[in-house]
């Protein structure tokens, strides 16, 4: 079944679902989400403004999984909130364009945006405990999305909610419907949030660090769940994370953000094998490797995100970069294509294609990468979305 067909019929159950008469089927070839020059500025008391997102552009095709990687403060979360229109109205200035199926979300009337949210655009947040209303039963928090975006009855919504919870791996879902968030474990809460987000079969799901607040063992389970569901439903996903391991196991393409701008953008394999921006290179190089010789020193990126200069003055990463030179201090560095197709870099002195500082994996079929967040290893092996005729390194 093509993802389009999956959109309009139920996957496994034979219950007639949410009426989709309001939605037009998704055209596979058109771009689902296009973010152009997104700019978010926070005005603070005392005059100092924070330029959290500084001209970010990326796009998402139907069914695609796009990763956004960066440290805290890089602007990745703010980007996602801006796309969904969830930033506070006061003290925030948002510019640019966020085109969802051709319509600009930033200028859309509030009512129309509310119609899209929850039904075609959905989001999963970082902290499952605080993202659920503590005084409302979990079941109600699921059914309210269903009731809002379709004409089903309350009892049908309840049945659907129970089914959703079951499919998200929550045992004894009937009982859970009446329970409160504090009665569920962290992993179950996040599954409930995923169930809520996917209840109306959205075309686009944005996940803002969905596993960061969870135990390591649960993280893997939740990511697996997301992978499965998204593939089942044909939902496109934007995965925001600071964890390269998550990206490696899930995403089709990756955008690396630093200080509010995208500094590198490439398909997943390409990024991991040929990182060009010095920041990406540093990120990959800082990951401890199981196959590294003993006694090899770790290679962190020196400095902190606060050792930065404004993009309007030069490359923001320059203060922390080993290869910084005078010509890096050029205002408004552009994002240029480099190397293979689809690879964009914002760097004056990018790493050469096969840089000695990035150690090539010996056998990339079973390369072990440890995420910076833990000792867990995720393999960068072929997943469903890579093409068969891929080159292999010797």
């Amino acid at each position, binding site marked *: 079944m093509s993802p389009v067909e999956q959109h309009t019929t139920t996957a496994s159950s034979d219950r007639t679902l949410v009426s989709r008469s309001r939605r037009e089927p998704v055209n596979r070839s058109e771009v689902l989400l296009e973010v152009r020059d997104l700019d978010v500025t926070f005005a603070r008391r005392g005059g100092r403004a924070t330029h959290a997102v500084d001209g970010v552009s990326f796009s998402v095709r139907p069914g695609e999984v796009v990763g956004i990687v960066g440290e805290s403060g890089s602007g990745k979360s703010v980007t996602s909130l801006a796309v*969904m229109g*969830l930033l506070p109205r*006061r003290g925030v200035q948002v510019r640019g364009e966020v085109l969802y199926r051709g319509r600009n979300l930033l200028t859309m009337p509030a009512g129309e*945006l*509310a*119609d*899209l*949210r*929850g*039904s075609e655009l*959905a*989001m999963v*947040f970082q*902290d499952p405990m*605080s*993202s*659920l*209303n*503590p*005084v*409302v039963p979990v079941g*109600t928090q699921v059914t*309210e*999305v269903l009731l*809002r*975006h379709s004409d089903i009855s309350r009892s049908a919504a309840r049945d659907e909610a129970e089914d959703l919870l079951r499919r998200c791996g929550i045992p004894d879902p009937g009982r859970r419907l009446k329970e*409160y968030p*504090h*009665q569920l474990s962290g992993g179950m809460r996040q599954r409930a*949030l995923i169930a*809520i*987000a996917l209840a109306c079969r959205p075309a686009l799901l944005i996940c803002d660090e969905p596993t960061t607040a969870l135990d390591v063992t649960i993280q893997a389970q939740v990511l697996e769940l997301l992978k499965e569901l998204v593939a089942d439903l044909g939902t496109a996903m934007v995965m925001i994370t600071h964890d390269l391991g998550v990206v490696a196991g899930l995403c089709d393409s990756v955008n690396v953000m630093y200080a509010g701008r995208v500094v590198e953008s490439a398909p997943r394999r390409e990024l991991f094998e040929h990182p060009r921006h010095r920041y990406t290179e540093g990120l990959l190089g800082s990951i401890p490797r199981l196959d590294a010789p003993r006694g090899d020193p770790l290679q962190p990126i020196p400095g902190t995100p606060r050792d930065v200069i404004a993009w309007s003055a030069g490359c923001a990463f320059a203060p922390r970069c080993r290869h910084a030179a005078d010509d890096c201090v050029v205002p408004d560095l552009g994002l240029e294509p480099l190397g293979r197709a689809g690879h964009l870099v914002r760097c004056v002195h990018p790493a050469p294609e096969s840089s000695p500082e990035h150690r090539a994996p010996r056998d990339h079929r079973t390369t072990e990468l440890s995420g910076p967040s833990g000792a867990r290893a995720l393999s960068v092996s072929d997943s469903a979305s890579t093409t068969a005729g891929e080159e292999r390194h010797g």
Partner: protein
Amino acid sequence: MLRFVIRRLLLLVPVLVGLSVLLFAWVRALPGDPARALLGEKATPESIAQVNEQYGFDKPLLTQYLTYSGRLLRGDFGSSPRTGLPVLGTFLERFPATVELSVSALLFAVVLGIPVGYLAAKRAGGWLDRFFVAGSLLGVVVPVFVLAYLLKIVFAVGIPGPLHVLAVLPTSGRQDSRIDATHITNFYVLDGLLTREWDASWNAVTHLVLPGIALGCIPLAIIVRMTRASVIDVLNEDYVRTAQAKGLARGLITRRHVLRNAMLPVTTTIGLQTGALLAGAVLTESVFAFNGIGSYLFDAISGLDFAVLQGFILFIAVIYALINLVVDLMYGVIDPRLRAA
């Protein structure tokens, strides 16, 4: 749940015991000897002897205390030397008046305070918000009796001149004497409804307006600030953002997600305001010649009637403790996180 209630009720006991000890110490600390203090200046040797007998003031300290607290337990708070009437009896007779007044004040404070606080929170930082916050501050600092007088002058007695039109409300008392109303429960408004004497009921209501507003201003101010702070906190919570991400209607978000959480601390505040109400009632009732326990206490203090004062303290402490208990229980009902505990 039941266990929780029982446990709390049991905790009340040591508090009451401790209170009786403190009261006893207080009575003994009064200037002069206890019997005379309780009886006041009009004490005759016979009555002194009688009180000494009743309370055991001439016996050793421990016996005194036991006799004393025994009497308190039986509800014998003695008699007021000024009126000659038993203290507890007068309390119970005048208590409904204060309850009516307190309820009016609380109603005024809640019905006005919560919406105002909510509005202020939604427009936090704006001029409306600042106006409300400033207003609520004023409500807290203006002394109750000053406010009571102001209201009385403007809306009851009347300022000579153009503003005299505002003087529509009664100046004092609970009901006009011309209305011959039957009183069953001593809750005048309720009585009127029960006996279908509508004008009596309405008349009682008009008498409650000014004192209710005067008394309710402080709770109003506090409720406004509490609601505002609580709503602001809740608006910043992640689950409100989740609700918005679901595309829910604004009214639904407000009702189910914002208010249900914001009202939790406000409910506790409302319960706690009752203590402030009781204190304020003392001053307000005297200004409006309202026959509740507040004015009873006022007269007692001015007349140095310690018997009444002693009874009053115990009475108030018990009521206060019961109200706190009710508030705690309510909180346990509203907040599901506490229910399991």
